[in-house]
C-alpha cells in the first residue's frame, strides 16, 4: 500500500533526480540505480527492463523511466507524482534562467561546474554500466550464450553503430529464438 512515508520518499528521490542529474535521460540512471539499492520499489533487473521499454516508447527517456518507476512503486497516481517531482526543479530553474540565457551558459562559474560535471556524470553512468554488466552478463544463468551475444553486439556498436531500437528488437528476437530452440531456460 502507498503510505504517506512512501510518497514523501518518492517526492524527495525524484525531485533530487531533477535537481542533480546531468547529461540528459541516461544521466538519471545512476540515481535510479541508487533507488533500486535503497528501496524495494523495483529491482535492478526491473530497472534494465524499464530502460528498454523507455527506449521504444515516445517521449524523453527520463520521463518514461520516472513514470515506470512510479508505476512499479505504487500506480498511476504515484507515477504522476514521481514525474511531476522530477520536472519541478527544471520548471523553477528554467524560468529563472530564461532571462539570462547566454549570460548563464557563458558564466565562469557555470562553465567551471560543467567542466567537472561532465566527467563526473560520465563516471556515474560507467558505474551503472559495470553493475548491470555484472548482473546481466557475468551472473547470467546462460553466461556462455549471453557472453557471445554481448561480444557480438559490442563489436557491432563499435564498428557500425545502429539505432537503439535496432538493438532492442534484434536481441528480443534472438531471446525468443533461443527459448524456442531450448538453448536458454
Amino acid at each position: 500500500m502507498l503510505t504517506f512515508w512512501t510518497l514523501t520518499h518518492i517526492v524527495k528521490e525524484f525531485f533530487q533526480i531533477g535537481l542533480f542529474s546531468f547529461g540528459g535521460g541516461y544521466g538519471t540512471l545512476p540515481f535510479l540505480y541508487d533507488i533500486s539499492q535503497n528501496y524495494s520499489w523495483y529491482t535492478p533487473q526491473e530497472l534494465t527492463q524499464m530502460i528498454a521499454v523507455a527506449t521504444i516508447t515516445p517521449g524523453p527517456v527520463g520521463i518514461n523511466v520516472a513514470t515506470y518507476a512510479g508505476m512499479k512503486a505504487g500506480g498511476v497516481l504515484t507515477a504522476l507524482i514521481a514525474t511531476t517531482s522530477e520536472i519541478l526543479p527544471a520548471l523553477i530553474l528554467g524560468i529563472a534562467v530564461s532571462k539570462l540565457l547566454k549570460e548563464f551558459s557563458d558564466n565562469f562559474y557555470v562553465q567551471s561546474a560543467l567542466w567537472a560535471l561532465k566527467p563526473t556524470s560520465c563516471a556515474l553512468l560507467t558505474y551503472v554500466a559495470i553493475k548491470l554488466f555484472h548482473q546481466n552478463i557475468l551472473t547470467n544463468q546462460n553466461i556462455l550464450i549471453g557472453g557471445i551475444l554481448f561480444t557480438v553486439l559490442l563489436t557491432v556498436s563499435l564498428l557500425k553503430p545502429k539505432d537503439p531500437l535496432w538493438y532492442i528488437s534484434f536481441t528480443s528476437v534472438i531471446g525468443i529464438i533461443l527459448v524456442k530452440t531450448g538453448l536458454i531456460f
Partner: protein
Amino acid sequence: MKKISISDIFLAFLYSGLILLGGGYIILPILQTELVEKRKWITDEELADYYAVSQSLPGLIAINISIIVGYKLRGKRGAIAGVCGITFFAFWAIVMLASIIANYTSNRYVEGAFWGIEIAVVILIISAIREMWGKAIKDKGSLILFFIALGIMLATNISPAYIIISSILTGILWKLTERSKGKC
C-alpha cells in the same frame, strides 16, 4: 503577427514528444523542424542558445528546452504548456505498457525476449558513455575527476547526489585556482 496561444504551444510539444523515439539527442532536429521551420516561432540562433542552456541545467534536456521555449513564447503558462505537451505521451504510453507487461512477465517467450533485451541495454549504456566521454574528457583534469568519481562510487555506497554536489564545488575551485595562477 497572430499571438501564439497556449494550446498551440501544448500541441507543438505534444507532437514533438510523440515523434521523440529511441532516446539520445534527437530533440534538437525535431524542434528545428517543428518550431523554426514549420511554425517560425523562433530562429535557429535562438534555438541553439536555448539548447545550450538546457544542457547546462540539471535534468532532462528535452524538458528544459520545452520550458524555456514555452516561457519565451508565453511566459509561465507557456512553460507549463510546453512541458505538459512533451511529457504527455511519454507518461501515458508507460502507464499503459507497464500494466500490460506486468501480466506477461511469466510467459516463457516474453522472459526470453527480456533476457536478450537486458544485454542490449548494457550496450546502449556503453554507447551513451562513449558519446559522453568525447564531450567530457577534454584534458588531464577532467580525466582525473572521472577516475576519482568512479572510484568513490565503486568503493562506497554514497548517494550520487553528493558526488554531483562535490563535483560542482571541485570544478569551481579548480578553475578559480587555475585562473589565479594564470594571473601571476
